[in-house]
């Protein structure tokens, strides 16, 4: 092992960067793993997607189906549809791969959304991470677009209806709509270039951009280091957590296998998109109960709720679909991407935030976020008006009008309750902490009193010693590398057993691989130190 690394180091100089990477500290909190679900789902998407490209034929060319699915034999189908049937029924493990791919896409975007909610509600997007937030929003848009394109590729009746709607939406853009639609779809609907074009965009263009942006997303995260929740020993100037190797690597590796396992289980056990039951898409045919995949649901819901008003502007009629299907997502994603800047304008806060906010500690943002979220959740549910009406044996019109009212009524109510709930909980002593047991004492005079027991984990807690950088930060001293190294040496040799070597020309070694570490954070403009220092209670190691 060391021979190999030496060999590599002598030629490529991997030790310096490698050590930095191996010593990267990850704050240990479960909510930081939501983005990982998205990342691992994306890896599953890549692997299953490559498998599917081996058998999928991206062509609208019509052939007579002679495959193994009897109810469609002799029908005219496109090669895209026939090859999807072939993947489902004849290719070994083809259907499980197709279903894993589809489930992974659904989970991928769901994980992106909850990851984004975590970032939003804890204020992790604040300075210096605004750029990474914008990259994340772009990633989410691309994921949704690619999901829609992939859903459309089998050329079945349900997805074909979706493309038809998408075509009309593009057409509805004032002035440039018809040019734009013909440019994207290669002519009027349906044409024969939709499937091959969507295929190229789906397997090449968008995944390429996603991988590039993902690299930027993760690169910025490594460069800026993680945010962390406030807590004992956690300051704006350090990162407390587990090291990349081996503790985090095993945790993340295990989580990758869990994600892949859950997706494989869903792909193998639960049917998704049985396109053989839907049949080939033919423009004059339509099925009822047509919904897009869940991540497009809010757009479909908005289309359903929009009354058929005719708006005339500058002497031209703006088609009704323009407002819910073009304007709404445009405004949504613009405001979402610009949010860090909007909030900064509002709070006039120009300081660097590496410590997260508990959502309850910022009631204004939390309430606003919850209200806006509830607006989109109502739109999302509105996309299944017909299925809801049918399941609950009620009138479709009643359900539709209920949603038209709810979409305006629910957000203010959610805002009010969230705001006051945050206000209440932020004032409660020990809110969000683990409950401690109370010992009830009866005094000789018959008086009762309660005493809180010590929390069990605090007995194990290590003593908090300020890192030199933190001390320097607090005293307002401009740090420079020499001071940092001296002070680092002073604190890190407190343990006799620790073989720390700060004189190593690529930085000090850390003695152990596992445990909780605190490392100083590189400050923008201040130069990176990247050195590890393990804190322990003085004298404890001599036991």
């Amino acid at each position: 092992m060391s021979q190999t690394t030496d060999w590599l180091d002598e030629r490529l100089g991997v030790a310096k960067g490698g050590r930095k990477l191996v010593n990267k500290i990850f704050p240990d909190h479960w909510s930081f793993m939501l983005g990982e679900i998205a990342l691992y789902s994306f890896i599953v998407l890549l692997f299953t997607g490559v498998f599917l490209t081996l058998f999928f034929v991206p062509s609208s060319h019509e052939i007579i189906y002679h495959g193994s699915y009897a109810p469609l034999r002799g029908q005219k189908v496109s090669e895209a549809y026939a090859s999807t049937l072939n993947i489902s029924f004849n290719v070994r493990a083809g259907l499980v791969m197709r279903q894993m791919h589809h489930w992974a896409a659904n989970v991928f975007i769901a994980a992106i959304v909850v990851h984004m909610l975590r970032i939003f509600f804890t204020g992790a997007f604040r300075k210096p991470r605004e750029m990474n937030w914008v990259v994340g929003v772009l990633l989410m848009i691309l994921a949704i677009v690619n999901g829609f394109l992939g859903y459309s590729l089998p050329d079945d009746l349900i997805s074909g209806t979706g493309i038809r709607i998408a075509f009309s939406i593009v057409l509805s853009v004032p002035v440039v709509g018809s040019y734009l639609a013909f440019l994207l779809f290669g002519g009027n609907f349906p044409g024969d270039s939709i499937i091959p074009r969507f295929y190229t965009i789906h397997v090449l263009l968008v995944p390429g951009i996603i991988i590039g942006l993902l690299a930027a997303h993760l690169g910025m995260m490594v460069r800026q280091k993680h945010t962390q929740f406030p807590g004992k020993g956690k300051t704006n100037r350090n990162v407390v957590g587990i090291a990349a190797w081996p503790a985090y690597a095993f945790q993340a590796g295990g989580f990758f296998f869990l994600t892949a396992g859950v997706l494989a289980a869903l792909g193998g056990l639960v049917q998704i998109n049985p396109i053989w039951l839907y049949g080939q898409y033919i423009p004059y045919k339509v099925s009822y109960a047509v919904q897009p995949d869940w991540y497009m649901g809010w757009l479909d819901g908005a289309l359903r709720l929009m009354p058929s008003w005719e708006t005339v502007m500058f002497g031209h009629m703006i088609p009704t679909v323009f407002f819910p299907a073009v304007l709404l997502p445009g405004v949504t994603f613009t405001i979402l991407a610009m949010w860090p800047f909007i909030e900064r304008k509002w709070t006039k806060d120009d300081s660097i935030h590496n410590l997260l906010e508990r959502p309850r500690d910022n009631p204004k943002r939390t309430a606003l976020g919850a209200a806006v979220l509830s607006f989109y959740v109502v739109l999302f549910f509105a996309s299944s008006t017909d299925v809801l009406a049918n399941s609950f044996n009620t009138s479709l019109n009643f359900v539709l009008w209920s949603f038209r009212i709810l979409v305006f009524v629910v957000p203010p109510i959610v805002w009010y309750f969230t705001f006051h709930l945050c206000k209440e909980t932020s004032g409660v002593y020990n809110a969000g902490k683990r409950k401690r047991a109370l010992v009830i004492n009866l005094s000789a005079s018959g008086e009762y009193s309660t005493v809180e027991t010590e929390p069990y984990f605090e007995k194990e807690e290590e003593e908090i010693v300020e890192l030199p950088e933190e001390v320097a930060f607090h005293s307002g001293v401009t740090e420079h590398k020499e001071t940092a190294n001296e002070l680092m040496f002073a604190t890190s040799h407190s343990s006799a057993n620790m073989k720390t070597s700060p004189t190593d020309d690529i930085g000090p070694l850390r003695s152990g691989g596992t445990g909780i570490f605190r490392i100083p954070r590189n400050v923008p403009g201040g130069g990176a130190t990247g050195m590890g220092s393990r804190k322990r209670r003085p004298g404890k190691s001599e036991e």
Partner: protein
Amino acid sequence: MHRSLKAAGSVLNKPIFTSLAVGATVGAIGLAAFSGGAAASAQPATNPQAPIVYKAPPSNLAAEGNSIFQENCASCHGSQAEGSARGPNLQGLGAATIDFWVSTGRMPLADPTVQAIQKPSRFNRQQTLALDSYVASLAPGGVAIPDVNLPSADLARGAALFSTNCAACHTITGAGDALASNVYAPSLKPVDATQIAEAIRTGPANMPRFGPGTLTNQQVADIVSYVEYLHHPNDAGGIALGHVGPVTEGFIGIFVGLGVLMLAGFWIGGRAK
């Protein structure tokens, strides 16, 4: 005990290694349980017999039918099925119409202001035929009870005709759906071959009537065979989620897929202290 060992132990106590094993096992179960896409069975050989034979109900049951009608139907439809303010005239509608409404349990009806719902029929087969016979005997006209010769039907042609003529309301999987203002297209799952053909030929309630000029007997038989197929379609790929498309799939994806993974993350990751 040495502190660093203790610290190492506390991290290794976390279920990260267990999670590796659990992940592998869950994945293996998913893959192993997957049976692969079994091809649908080949279509049966065609039979030279007529695709649909229309049979009048036995006329000797008309007397029995009369007494059942007076007990159960006459209060709304009148004693001679001539209709009243509460129910329409049934004379000349034919045996198939009566057979469909009674055998699917839609008649007798509790509330004439809402769409009749399918429920277990109040009458057995002979009583139903007796009613059919009685009403058909009152006036000529309408369609007799169709008997579909399923072996002569072509499943693939039926699938194409179904997606053109039926899917727009009943959905492409036959699951049914709400239409507008309390009107809905019912699910096609609980109906038998005769009832499907009756519905096509007579057009009950809001459903359009498909006469012989629109669909030939052969085409009706083809559609019936496809609807029968939809009762137990090829559900390769695992648990079918009600055949209502992405609505249920989305819920499973979010709550089972992401939900399980979030719980797993909560299990592996650290919590607030």
